[in-house]
């Protein structure tokens, strides 16, 4: 049977609108943090390449205190430097590349600032309890803030430990006690890390729901409660 053109048109419209409405701030933040992590890992590689390159011009600079890239751009190489004689286009390209690296670092900082600010605004409770980096990692692992708000605390406790969990379920391996939450400062400090992770996951589930449904701010209180219990 041939497709009813009107029915198809209506379905396309509905799907397109639903698609547009599916873009929420938490999705944008997940993308930003994913970009941040990539920039972070790339930065190390390109900075070490640049230092290697620059070392032929002014090797002493790397050992000096201060901001390396800033100093490269200032370009105050003493004549007695051990570097080679580099002039003209050979020097120009080095300095141009340095300016790119500076902008690269700035872009990274901007993303970091953006994530921090948006997390405070959109997920104040999660940020107060777990910090914006860990908080966002957990949202990313869950898929979205909505999904995180729907998860039980026991699942949140093990987010990021899926592999170990399935190993436990399928074979007779030990069950994991924490996933991403291992990086939480309160869990790190605690003697009984499993129990601490459970407590944090418990409160984090409350925080996620508060944030998703735009409830009151209780993140700080909940954090204190965990601190007391761990003591």
């Amino acid at each position, binding site marked *: *049977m041939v497709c009813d053109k009107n029915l198809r048109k209506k379905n396309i419209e*509905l799907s397109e609108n*639903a698609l547009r409405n599916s873009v929420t701030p938490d999705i944008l933040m997940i993308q930003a943090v994913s970009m941040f992590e990539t920039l972070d890992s790339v930065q190390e590689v390109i900075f070490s390449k640049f230092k290697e390159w620059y070392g032929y011009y002014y090797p002493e600079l790397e050992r000096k205190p201060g901001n390396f890239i800033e100093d490269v751009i200032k370009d105050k190489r003493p004549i007695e430097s051990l570097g080679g004689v580099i002039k003209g286009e050979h020097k120009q390209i080095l300095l141009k590349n340095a300016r790119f690296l500076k902008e690269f670092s700035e872009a990274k900082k901007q993303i970091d600032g953006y994530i921090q600010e948006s997390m405070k605004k959109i997920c104040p409770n999660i940020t107060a309890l777990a910090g914006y980096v860990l908080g966002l990692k957990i949202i990313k692992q869950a898929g979205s803030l909505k999904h995180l708000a729907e998860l039980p605390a026991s699942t949140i406790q093990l987010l990021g430990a899926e592999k170990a969990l399935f190993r436990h379920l399928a074979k007779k391996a030990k069950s994991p006690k924490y996933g991403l939450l291992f990086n939480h400062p309160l869990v790190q400090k605690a003697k009984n890390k499993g129990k601490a992770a459970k407590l944090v996951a418990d409160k984090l589930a409350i925080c996620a729901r508060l944030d998703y449904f735009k409830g009151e701010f209780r993140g700080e209180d909940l954090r204190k409660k965990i601190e007391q219990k761990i003591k």
Partner: protein
Amino acid sequence: MYGEKLVTINNKEYRVWNALDSKLAAALKKGIKDLFVRPEMTCLYLGSSTGTTASHISDIVGKNGCVFCVESAPRVMREFLFLCEERENLVPILADASQPELYKERIIKVEWLYQDVAQRNQVDIFLRNTVMFARKGAYCVLTVKARNIDVKKEPKKVFEEVEHELEKHLKIIAKTTLEPFQKDHMVFVMRY
């Protein structure tokens, strides 16, 4: 369309249906003789993702057929909507297949139904959609992933239970596992 090979035989162009990309192609390779999807049929595809397999169904039913495609993830629906621009017999539905009540006005009764969703309650989802949208006598194809349903149980046992559940409502025509193309998968071809 997604980087598959094109072959020309007698001046007609054919697209290679890769068994590694598509579970239906894998089922055919594993000896399923007929999927019972024919030109001019109206179809329902649950879990169409970016539309790799859906594009082949779209080719089979032709311009006088129609394929309703339900997908719940917005990210892949985005790709699928681009595909719909090229193929006029595809109908996109961004909705959760586990809640057929929410999109029942957007679909007409179908003659062929295929489901490939990775959900724990995928058999339940399949049956509810079948009851709601399949015509009597419609052909239904279901791919089951054992590890979605229960990681603890032996896949064989899971398949047995699924088969038992399906038999209550449909007549099973053929079934096959998908080794070596997919691990712990079973395809059922049925008639409603």
